């Protein structure tokens, strides 16, 4: 297992360097920050002073070298927009996104396991058809539309929930529901498909013939074998959420990393953008390693394949 993890961490290092370099170069292709941070009537001298003060007048290679030297010291520079350290802005926003993503995925996985298993238990039954219809609808739901309708119905018309914000448990309901609906729909379909195959396997008949209860058969035997494909899909969906739920963060005023990254791109706030992408990339690499490790734990063939 340690060999497996070591190899995964090593293989992640190269993409990480590519990400750092890519973001640095692409950000600078978006144009001159002086156009945004100085008034339209600023004189050429003011623009030159601005560039010199922030090092934008240096060759790109020199700027990149300075940036790498800063990163090694865990210094990500200062935000052009807010005049605060870039790391402060990122470390403030990232937990908000992680909490939202975590809550969403836990609920989506739990819900999908229950509904998907229920549907697969009796294929083509009414329950199966209801679950299939519901999951297909959920998987195709545009999150922007769902969010706005949720606000209009539950906040404006009924007054049960706040429109937006982060204060109190009620404020979590609409953002989590909006984020939850698509992963839930997709996962229900994956779990159902995998469980239908698993429940028709010979070892399930053996387990039943030995007198195992249905709950144990479904959740103890079939689900364990149906888990790897669901885990793979859940992993992908989680990575998407950790990358920032921009639509939800924008509509509900959730101060997360997705909104921060978009604002940084639009405002050419290079330091914050670079820090946000780096932290997110490291987290996604770590998350992928955890998912691979779970995969290896669930399927001994994965472990053997790696250590052989």
């Amino acid at each position: 297992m340690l060999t497996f993890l070591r190899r995964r961490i090593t293989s992640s290092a190269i993409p990480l360097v590519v990400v750092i370099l890519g973001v640095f170069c692409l950000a600078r292709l978006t144009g001159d920050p002086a156009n945004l941070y100085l008034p339209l009537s600023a004189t050429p001298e003011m623009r030159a002073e601005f560039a010199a003060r922030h090092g934008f007048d240096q060759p790109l290679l020199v700027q990149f070298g300075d940036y790498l030297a800063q990163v090694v010291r865990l210094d990500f520079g200062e935000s052009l927009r807010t005049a605060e350290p870039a790391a402060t802005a990122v470390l403030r926003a990232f937990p908000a996104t992680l909490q939202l993503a975590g809550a969403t995925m836990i609920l989506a996985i739990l819900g999908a396991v229950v509904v998907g298993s229920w549907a697969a238990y009796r294929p083509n039954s009414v329950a199966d058809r209801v679950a299939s219809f519901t999951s297909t609808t959920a998987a195709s739901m545009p999150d922007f539309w769902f969010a706005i309708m949720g606000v209009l119905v539950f906040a404006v018309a009924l007054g049960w929930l706040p429109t937006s914000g982060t204060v109190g448990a009620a404020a979590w309901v609409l953002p989590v529901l909006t984020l939850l609906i698509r992963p839930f729909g997709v996962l229900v379909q994956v779990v159902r498909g995998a469980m239908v195959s698993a429940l028709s396997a010979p070892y399930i008949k053996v387990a039943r013939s030995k007198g195992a209860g249905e709950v144990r058969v479904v959740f103890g035997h079939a689900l364990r074998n149906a888990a790897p494909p669901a885990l793979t899909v859940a992993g992908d969906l989680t990575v998407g959420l950790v990358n920032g739920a921009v639509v939800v963060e924008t509509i509900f005023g959730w101060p997360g990393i997705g909104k921060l990254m978009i604002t940084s791109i639009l405002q050419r706030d290079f330091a914050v953008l670079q820090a946000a992408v780096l932290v997110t990339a490291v987290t996604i690499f770590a998350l992928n390693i955890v998912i691979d490790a779970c995969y290896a734990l669930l399927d001994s063939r994965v472990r053997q394949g790696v250590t052989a």
Partner: protein
Amino acid sequence: MITTPRRRQAASALLALGTMLSAGACTVANSGPEPSSGAAASTVRIVLPEEPPTLEPCDASLTATGRVTRANITEALTERDPASGQLQPALATEWKQDSENEWTFTLRQGVKFHDGTAFDAKAAAFSIDRTVNSKIDCNVKGYVFGGIELTATAVDASTLKVKTAKPDPILPLRLSFVEIVPATTSATAKVREPVGTGPYKIAKWDTGRSLRLERFSGYWGKAPDFAAADYVWRAEGSIRAAMIQSDEADVAIGLAPEDGAGEAAVQFPNNETSYLRIDAAKPPLNDIRVRQAINYAIDKNGLVASVFAGLGKPAGQIVPEGVTGHSTAIQPWPFDMAQAKKLIAEAKADGVPTDTPITIIGRNGIYPKAAESMEVVQNALIEAGLSVKIQMLDVNAWLEYLLAPFPKDAGPTLLQAQHGNQAGDAAFTMGQIYGSKGAQSSYGTKELDELISAAEQASGEERQAAFAKALEYQNKEVVRDAVMAHMTGILALSKKVTYKPNAATNDEMRLAEMHPAG
């Protein structure tokens, strides 16, 4: 196969993750004083389109910063009445011009900063010097002062002298943008949470979530009605409007007609004028008949009535009424498609390449229905006989076309633009937009440059007349743009608050002008 201890480990890990998330949820949920429907009546709740990047006073000319900072947290020596356009006393009670290059300001006495220190001429001199002469990229420096050189000196506690290298007849107006801070404020770095003399002080800024201002008990003027103001920000306009309807906010700004504010919506002139900048240096736009034809072809009344949903007023010049230099002689160009077709045909007959593709460079979201309005313009110009396509850009890419040096490989363009003159004097418009060397100018003439230069040196009634003359010359002899409309903003008010927005509201929202209803 997974062994029992591994299952336990997995279960423990899941439990730990769940606990962490729950704890985190509580952290987020309880982390800020963000206002909700239970806010006290003595608090006004305001929802903005965006969080202020900082509350730095020397960046108060930035809309996102100024609408919170100006006249609420900090104050200037003078202030301009947006209704009359007249300059009024604020922290300076009176001022006089001693010579062409020197002014004396008498300062208000008995004024204290939020930290308890006294406001005096040293603080005023420091604030001016910090804004104009420091190296901290103050937005006000570029917006208001340009390359103007000046020095401010405290004569005594309540007398300030300001000397300029060149005569500046509107120095007191320029100083209405310099927010006064104590001399202890950093002169080498911007501050996020300033100390000022305003009626409100910063109580708590929970960055990313909310900002609370509380009434300053030591304020020199009349105490405002609301004891506190809670600001939150939501990027989506329909959410801002919904917050009024669900009693989560009392004031929502930056709304569009489609945001659904309903009866809570209040319209106000937002000091912005929409226009198309014509790239008059390139054929076929270098022929004045083509530029005149563009003006005749655009049905401004129809555009305002249908696309802008009636929000706006067809315009013929870039500065609205109330700004020094506005000319009452200039009327919006009449809609006359027959005349437009005739002018294009004449130009074509004289060898002007009227079939050269012209690109409208549009900017998404510059004002409500920005793309739709450009489609209307495109159709009109095609009907008049021009070849026109549209390219809608985001703000960054659009700025490359707005500001010199312009992209060299671009063909003839019509730039969708909008201009707001916060300062109330055409000097803040003419040079940069119509001057040959203006930062936003793609074309100018020597005659127009001379008229602008003369106007900038004039004062009083002469100044008004000189700028009006320059605008009239531009409209008749240069026709560098197609002005469309003086725009109208929308804000929404709850039934708990009364507030009368004005032309300055977009840039400064005075909490002292908000009152509890009834």
